[in-house]
C-alpha cells in the first residue's frame, strides 16, 4: 500500500471529526491533527479504533503518543501493516 493510499484512507477516517473543514481540503503529511484540523483530543481514541478496523492492525497506547500529524499516522500504519 503506497503512502498516498494510506493517507487518503486516514483523511477519510478523520473527516467527521474535523472542525476546520478548510484545513482538510489542503491537508498533507505535515498537517497537525489537533492544531490544524481542530479535532477534539478526546476523539483521537475513536480515530485510532477506526484505523485498527480499517487496516486490520493493532495500535498500542505507546504508539498513539507518537502521532501528531497525518504523516505520523501514515508512517505508523505502514509499519503495522508491513
Amino acid at each position, binding site marked *: 500500500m503506497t503512502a498516498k493510499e494510506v493517507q487518503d484512507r486516514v483523511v477519510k477516517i478523520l473527516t467527521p471529526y474535523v*472542525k476546520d473543514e478548510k484545513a482538510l481540503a489542503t491537508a498533507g503529511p505535515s498537517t497537525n491533527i489537533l492544531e490544524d484540523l481542530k479535532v477534539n483530543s478526546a476523539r483521537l*481514541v*475513536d480515530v485510532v*479504533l477506526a484505523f485498527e478496523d480499517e487496516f486490520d492492525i493493532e495500535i498500542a497506547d505507546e504508539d498513539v503518543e507518537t502521532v501528531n500529524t497525518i504523516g505520523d499516522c501514515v508512517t505508523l500504519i505502514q509499519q503495522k501493516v508491513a
Partner: protein
Amino acid sequence: MSRRVVITGLGVISPNGNGVAEFELALRKGKSGLALQPSMVEAGFNCHVAAVPQGVDALAQAAFREEELLAMNTSHRYAALAALEAWQDAGFTRPEAGDDRVDWDSGAVLGTGIGGMDTIAERVVPLVNAKRSKRLGSTAVEQVMASGISARVSGVLALGNQVTTNSSACATGVEAVAEGTWRIRAGRAERMLCGGAEVPSPYIWAGFDAMRVLSRKFNDQPEKASRPMSASAGGFIPGCGSGVLVLESLDSALARGARIRAEVLGVATNCGGHRGGGSMTSPNPTGVQRCIQAALADAALEPARIDAISGHLTATGADPKEVASWSRALGRGPADFPVITSTKSLIGHALGAAGAIESVAAVLMLEGGFVHASRNCEDVHPEIEPFAASIPHETRAVPGLSVMMKAGFGFGDVNAALVLRKWQ
C-alpha cells in the same frame, strides 16, 4: 426577588408524534403510540407492549453533524432534538458551528429517570465482559453520565447558565419545570430549558416487568394496553421520548416580543417520607395532597379556579388513590370536579420524561382550549366512577379552559406539581 415565569417554547419527541405540530394533532385525535415490541416478546416479558417514538434517527441525521452524531446515544438524540425545537419555537436561532459566543443567561434542567441504559446494556457491559473495554472509545462516559443529556444540549445551544440533570423517578419531568421556575424567579437566569428524556430499552423495562407493574392482559390489542382509570387496568405501559419547555422571565419575553404560550403560576415538590402508607414504590396520600396544595398556594389561586387536571395516572392500582387525593386536596367532590385526563393512555409512561412530555401536552391543551381523550377507560374503575363525568373519553373542547394542573408522582414517594395558566 420574585419574577413571573412564562413558557415561550416547546419541543417534543413522543411515541405518537415528533415535533409540536404533529404531537398536538395526535393529542386532538387521541392517537395512540403504543405498539407490540418484538424485543419484549423475545426476552420473555409478561408485557409485550411499549410506546417508542418513530423516525428519530432520520430527524437526528438532518439536524446534527456526523461528529455530533457519533457521540450521541438515543437519550442524547431525543433530548437534543426536543431542545432544539423548543429553542427555535421560542424564536431563537441555533448558534452556527464556529460561533464562540456563550449565552450566559440561559441554562437547562433536563432530567432522566434511568439515564443511558441503552449504552450501558448494549456497549459497556458486553465489551467489559469480553475484556474488550478499549473498544468503548471516547464516548461511553458522556453517554452514561446522568448529566449527559443536559450537557449535550448545552453544547448544541451554547448555554452558559446552570446546566444540570435532575432525577426523581417518574416525577422528574415535572420537577425539572419547578427547578427552572425557581431559578428564573430568583433572578439567576433569564431562560431555562426544562424537561427530560428517557430511552426505550428492554433492560429498563425488565425490572418493572419483574415487579409485575406492567400491563400484561392486552398484549394482543396494543393500543388498548394502557388503561389509566379503568376497572381493567393491570399495570402501566412503558414509554419513552423527550419533552422540553423553554421557561423565560416575563420581562425577557416581553422585551424581545416573544410569543408567550402559557404562564407557570405555581410549582411545588415534596416527598411523602415513606410514611403514612407511602413507601419506595407507593405514595403517601398526605404527601401528594400537600404537594398539590403547595402548588396552588404558590400560584395564589383558589382550588375552584382549576379547570382541568393532567394527572400522573399510570394505569396501576394507584389511580383511584390519586383521583381521591386530587379531590381531597382541591376540596372538590364529584359534582364540581375538574376535567381530568391521562396522557399515558396515549403514549404509555415515559418515566423520567413523562412529566416533561405531559407538560408540553398541558400547554398545548391550554392554548388550544381542549382536553385530549383519556382512552381505554370506558369501564371506569369503581372507585373513580363517581368522577366519571369529568373524564373525556373523546377529546373535549373546553372553550373557557384557563388553568390546568399537571403533576408527577414517582418511586421514592416523591411528588411534583405545576399550575399552568393560558396566556392572554
